[in-house]
């Protein structure tokens, strides 16, 4: 019964508190921040090691791996967003690497930064800013007019659905990773309880040793930790690309419409002058 009583499902622990105050809130350094620094460092070291000492004709295995990753990322972005967005490949690859490695930290028993809503909220806000930036390329008027389509009665719903984009993105990622870690905690506790119930007759410390925790959690971990993490990284990147590409399309269409209107006006003036 001990395992069930000791079971604790908590969020990110606060490691230390800084004296800095922002809007009356104390700035604290949490476990998820420190773990995401670890992830950033890991990505940085990986990039440094893979791109070290590069040649025009690849000789080392490292360079071949690096070229493979870059080519895959570029083709992935080009295939989903179109040729003109090839410049997005580094951003999307960085997002995927951060998301996947953060979620995979839970394999090592560390708190994964992606099961803290704040981490993913940051990414979602970045994506939202980019979407709005590309929509604003068609001019502020066109952007605001987009909210009143198809009829102006729907304006509040359009605003809600615009804000729902980042919210649903961050809840999807957070919910999947967090539910995985909650289920893994429950599985470990249940296995410990069952094994102490079954091996009660063993002498001394051995009776309390959770034998069932060896090997059996791998099956669950494969799905919840590895498959779920990689899938969520893929989906977050995919949705980012789709939203940005469609926003750019909208902005482009609005800009075209504006240009057309200007041309028409000029033509009209010319006709009047003639």
């Amino acid at each position, binding site marked *: 019964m001990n395992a069930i009583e000791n079971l604790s*499902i908590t*969020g990110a622990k606060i490691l230390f508190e800084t004296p800095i105050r922002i809007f009356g809130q104390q700035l604290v350094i949490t476990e998820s921040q420190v773990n995401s620094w670890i992830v950033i460092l890991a990505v940085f070291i990986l990039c440094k090691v893979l791109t070290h000492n590069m040649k025009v004709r690849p000789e080392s295995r490292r360079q071949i791996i690096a070229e493979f990753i870059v080519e895959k990322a570029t083709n992935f972005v080009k295939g989903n967003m179109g040729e003109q967005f090839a410049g997005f490949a580094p951003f999307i690859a960085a997002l995927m690497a951060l998301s996947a490695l953060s979620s995979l930290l839970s394999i090592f028993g560390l708190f994964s930064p992606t099961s803290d809503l704040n981490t993913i909220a940051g990414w979602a806000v970045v994506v939202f800013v980019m979407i709005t930036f590309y929509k604003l390329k068609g001019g502020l008027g066109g952007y605001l007019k987009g909210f009143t389509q198809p009829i102006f009665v729907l304006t509040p719903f359009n605003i809600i659905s615009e804000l729902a984009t980042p919210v*649903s993105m961050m*809840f*999807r990622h*957070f*919910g*999947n990773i*967090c*539910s995985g870690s909650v289920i893994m905690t429950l599985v470990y506790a249940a296995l410990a309880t069952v094994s102490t119930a079954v091996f009660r007759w063993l002498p001394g410390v051995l009776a309390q040793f959770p034998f069932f925790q060896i090997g059996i959690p791998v099956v669950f971990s494969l799905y919840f930790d590895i498959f779920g993490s990689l*899938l*969520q990284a*893929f*989906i977050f990147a*995919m*949705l980012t690309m789709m939203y940005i590409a469609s926003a750019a399309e909208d902005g482009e269409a609005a800009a075209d419409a504006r240009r057309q209107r200007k041309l028409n006006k000029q033509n009209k003036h010319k006709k009047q002058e003639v």
Partner: protein
Amino acid sequence: MELALEKAIILAASAIGAGTAMIAGVGPGIGEGYAVGKACEAIGRQPECKGSVTSTMLLGCAVAETTGIYGFIVALLLLFVTPNMFINKLIG
């Protein structure tokens, strides 16, 4: 242990609410099962499209999962956030 009954009511109501919120998991289950079934049909008809069908299906499944995830987040809030909030309100 003053207000023990009130605290017990808050905790019990939160637990019942969390359990009820997880009924939201039914919808995505049915929807995703249907989507996977259709994907299996598509792969059976055109096995050469397996890769693109699978990745599109996974993306669609993840989007369909959102409602279930919302239910899960409501359950998490009911279990870990609201009981303390209401108990503090009761005391303070």
